[in-house]
């Protein structure tokens, strides 16, 4: 995979070249060119806002088809904690998990289980002395990428632990090898995802590390197949092993609760996250030890690749959580020992995508030109030029990827001037004729 693989892509045929997505994008990563939306790869953080907002469903996420599992002899599904609440509450967690056996899988391993290990490790991190606070959860890949491009000063605040998905993948593989004696090369583990960002983090991990996940299948694409098998699925196998604290990760605030500090802040929705990060960067957020930040409104339950309304899903999740709580008698589940390290060793580097030039003198010249152009633009932020705002157009012009006449108001001004000149010329008659 190249440096800029993105799960979020455009379906050219469906794109009408409207301005909905360019306006919504938190990193100003989309421009409309020749009637189609173009994603600026180095800016995209795969948050999926454009997928959600596009009225023509032209923005889509590249994920794997279910047939991807055919390439492996022993297939393990790793359902995200957000999966359970996609189905009616009459279907218990165990039934949903058993249905995976009917659609071609040989085992399932709940990512919620791994989330409990990550919570545990985060609790330990928080109690360490000298740790940089507030710690910021690294579970949402869109948030990590947002920090990479917009909040470099917060890179050191990220929790240096593998995500529950990666931990689950390793645990599931280990279990299959050790308990069932399966050859590691025969095992395929597949994440059942609520979002595009997770797919990107598997296909193109932050800094060239390899993911332990072999494929990413969207909840949306697998939903009907599971639904059709829920009635027939037997519940004899006890597969629902995750505790309530792991399940709660699906919801905004769930990770914070599991981490167990009173001083946590949970923020969801990418634009809200940006406001909070601005405050952290400006030293304006006091007394907070841990920040759980999720790109989607409502957390993973609001993921762009889920099927159920986020608020309905929240209510259902609560039932699953209550059931698990009852089983655990309200106590934290005692975790089986896991001796592998879940410390995240990848290096996260700042990607200064907003920089105008690598030479500061040139950058200053460009900035000056930018301000001048910007002051001449109408300030309507209409988006008709294909850029999200007048300022973004001014920036594009100095970057050499747009023209002032891309602005329809500027164009009209030019036409008007030209018309006036033509009229003036027309009135002039040669001396021989006057």
């Amino acid at each position, binding site marked *: 995979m190249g440096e800029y693989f993105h799960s979020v892509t455009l379906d050219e045929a469906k794109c009408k070249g409207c301005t909905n997505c360019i306006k919504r994008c938190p990193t100003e990563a989309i421009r409309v060119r020749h009637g189609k939306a173009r994603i600026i790869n180095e800016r995209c953080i795969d948050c999926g806002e454009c997928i959600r907002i596009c009225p023509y469903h032209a923005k889509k996420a590249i994920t794997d088809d279910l047939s991807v599992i055919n390439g492996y002899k022993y297939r393990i599904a790793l359902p995200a904690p957000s999966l359970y609440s996609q189905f009616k509450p009459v279907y218990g967690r165990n039934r949903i998990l058993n249905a995976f056996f009917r659609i071609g899988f040989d085992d399932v391993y709940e990512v919620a289980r791994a989330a409990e290990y990550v919570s545990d490790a985060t609790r330990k991190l928080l109690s360490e002395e000298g740790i940089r606070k507030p710690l910021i959860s690294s579970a949402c890949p869109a948030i990590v990428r947002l920090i990479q491009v917009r909040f470099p000063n917060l890179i050191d605040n990220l929790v240096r632990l593998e995500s529950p998905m990666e931990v689950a993948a390793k645990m599931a593989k280990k279990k299959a090898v050790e308990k069932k004696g399966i050859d590691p090369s025969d095992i395929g583990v597949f994440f059942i995802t609520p979002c595009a960002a997770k797919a990107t983090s598997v296909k193109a991990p932050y800094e060239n590390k390899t993911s332990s996940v072999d494929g990413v299948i969207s909840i949306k694409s697998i939903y009907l197949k599971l639904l059709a098998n829920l009635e027939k699925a037997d519940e004899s196998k006890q597969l629902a092993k995750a505790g309530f604290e792991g399940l709660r990760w699906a919801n905004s605030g769930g990770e914070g609760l599991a981490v167990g500090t009173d001083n946590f802040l949970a923020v969801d929705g990418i634009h809200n996250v940006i406001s909070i990060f601005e405050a952290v960067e400006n030293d304006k957020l006091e007394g907070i030890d841990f920040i759980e930040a999720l790109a989607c409104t409502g957390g993973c339950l609001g993921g762009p690749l889920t099927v159920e309304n986020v608020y309905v899903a929240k209510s259902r999740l609560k039932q699953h959580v209550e059931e698990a709580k009852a089983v655990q008698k309200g106590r934290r589940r005692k975790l089986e020992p896991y001796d592998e390290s879940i410390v995240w060793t990848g290096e996260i580097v700042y990607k200064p995508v907003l920089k*105008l030039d690598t030479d500061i003198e040139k950058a200053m010249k460009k900035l000056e030109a930018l301000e001048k152009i910007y002051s001449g633009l109408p300030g309507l932020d209409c988006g008709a030029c294909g850029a999200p705002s007048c300022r973004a157009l001014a*920036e594009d012009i100095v970057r050499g990827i747009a023209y002032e006449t891309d602005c329809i108001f500027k164009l009209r001004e030019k036409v008007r001037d030209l018309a006036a000149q033509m009229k003036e010329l027309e009135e002039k008659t040669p001396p021989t004729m006057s």
Partner: protein
Amino acid sequence: MAKSRMDLHYEIPADDFARAGEASSSVKKILVQLGIDPVRIKKAAISMYEAEINAVIHGGGGNAEVTIDADKIVIRIIDSGPGIEDLELAMQEGYTTATDEIREMGFGAGMGLPNMKRYADELDIQTEKGKGTVVTIVVYFHQQG
């Protein structure tokens, strides 16, 4: 070689808390576009923000004059407010003359000047009772000495 420099000017409206911080946040965006080291941007943005807020709360509004060249940013926040009565006292953490009303809004914790001192590479405050205050902040873009 003649070095380029940029001069920026912002108005700081009085008692408008909704807009307080707009100037420093614009300057921050500019520094990001210039490709300045993020750590330096943070120093400039926070110290300017504090001075800007002070001008809003205490100074009855004012102006921000910002000069940027390849090596540094010089921020001058000028107000015609009441001036700072006891500068030495004002530099102490937690010392505040802000009203309860302002503190209820989350401002006026007595950290403004101490934070400016902490983040600015150079800080100069000229204040005269009844006439106003000029705060000059310098942040260098490269490690000094």
